């Protein structure tokens, strides 16, 4: 008897992505470049985060034609973004057969109070988090993979670093707590007691955790691996750089060999200009994507 959509099948798919780079693409040509460069998956969307930031307005699920074109162009898994809480966008993506859905703060939230109940889908979900409480709530709803939130579309790594350190520090703390201290920690974090017991037993999150938001160079990707990410999402960093093919290849290799600094030096030579960056303090707090979701 074949069982589909089980936790093992959904979380297992993310395990296969570990050590890899998932790249944002907006058409079939970019998807093929990403695959040839060694991406472990692509994220199909209509505009990369830096364009969403520039253009403003409401950012929604991509035109299904784009997603379908990307699915037909590559043999690696295809992920796609749905708005936070947008049940129908998620069901549409599931019906189209995408391999993973990102319930993403990069798009304009459809619901400011409730996230999707991801347990009820066969397709697995990845969600963003800034701390262990947010991670716990998303996993509680059924997310099979996490990514620590950076500030998307900025080419500035500082927020991704902050949140990955935050999550990891909170995991380490939970591991050191005695059982009778866990309930209070659960209340403080807004996480379930059972979840914290599992984190304590495993010594890590129970699902794969990638870093995302602001990764613009091979060294940025290696930094996130150094800090304990299982892999990286690169959004605008590749196709907004001067030489996407070379950036894509270099970021893949720097992610694999993240502690080989001579190699990262070689990979980073003469790559051309990285995407233009944004200083976070210049972004009004209402425009910070990381603050979407809770």
């Amino acid at each position, binding site marked *: 008897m074949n*069982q*589909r959509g089980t936790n093992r099948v959904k979380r297992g798919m993310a*395990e296969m992505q*570990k050590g*890899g780079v998932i790249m944002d693409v907006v058409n079939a040509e970019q998807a093929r470049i990403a*695959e040839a460069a060694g991406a472990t998956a692509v994220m199909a969307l209509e505009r990369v985060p830096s364009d969403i930031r520039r253009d403003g307005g409401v950012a929604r699920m991509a035109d299904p034609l784009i997603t379908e074109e990307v699915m037909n162009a590559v043999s*690696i898994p295809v992920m796609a973004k749905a708005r936070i809480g947008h049940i129908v966008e998620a069901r549409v993506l599931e019906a189209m057969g995408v391999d993973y859905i990102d319930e993403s703060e990069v798009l304009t939230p459809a619901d400011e109070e409730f996230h999707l109940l991801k347990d009820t889908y066969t397709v697995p979900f990845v969600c963003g988090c800034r701390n262990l409480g947010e991670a716990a709530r998303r996993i509680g709803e059924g997310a099979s993979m996490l990514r620590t939130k950076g500030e998307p579309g900025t080419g500035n790594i500082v927020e991704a670093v902050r949140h990955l350190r935050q999550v990891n520090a909170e995991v380490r703390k939970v591991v050191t707590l005695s059982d009778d201290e866990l309930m209070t920690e659960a209340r403080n974090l807004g996480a379930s007691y059972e979840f914290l017991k599992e984190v304590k037993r495993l010594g890590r999150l129970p699902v794969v955790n990638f870093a995302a938001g602001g990764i613009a160079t091979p060294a940025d990707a290696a930094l996130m691996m150094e800090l304990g990410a299982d892999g990286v999402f690169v959004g605008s960093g590749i196709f907004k750089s001067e030489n996407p093919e070379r950036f894509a290849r270099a970021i893949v290799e720097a992610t694999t060999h993240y502690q080989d600094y001579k190699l990262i030096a070689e990979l980073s030579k003469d790559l051309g200009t990285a995407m233009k960056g944004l200083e976070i303090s210049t972004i009004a707090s209402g425009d910070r994507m990381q603050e979407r979701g809770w």
Partner: protein
Amino acid sequence: MQGAVREHVQSIETCGAEAVLVKWPRDLEGLDALILPGGESTTMRRLIDRYSLMEPLHEFAASGKPMFGTCAGLILLAGKVVGYDESHLGVMDVIVERNSFGRQADSFEAPLSIKGLDGPFEAVFIRAPHIVSTGPGVEILCEHEGKIVMARSGPFLGCSFHPELTSDHRITEYFIAMLNSNAENQTSAAMF
């Protein structure tokens, strides 16, 4: 290099063998056996080419040391991949088809009856390949719904599913037993 490396390491260590991570050709020196884990075969192939691992891997295979590929690893071992002109390592006399059970929505788990193992093995299939046909001398160890999902050819073992995602270590034990029957006094297994 990429994929479910941590899980294979845990399984190898649970079985009492030593695990070594392989990213560079030099990492293969002194190893007795090699596991090619699940992950993305296109990514792994690109890194194999980029870091000149193809020739050392062929030499490793030619030396008769056991190699075990799970999912993407099976695709790397196969002599032919349906729809592609060239194989990757091409050392195991089987033809495989990628993603042949469908996309992620069709990924599944199911109990399998595997030759040589007592009792069912709970197997996790993720965008899995299957073995379309086998050459002479290849032993079919398991079929599921009419598709070959596990086979052995001399020192090469391959399966479509991910034994590393479960806490059942019998397949890793089976592989380590292949190593021990291959030559006495060899105890370390390796990870790719």
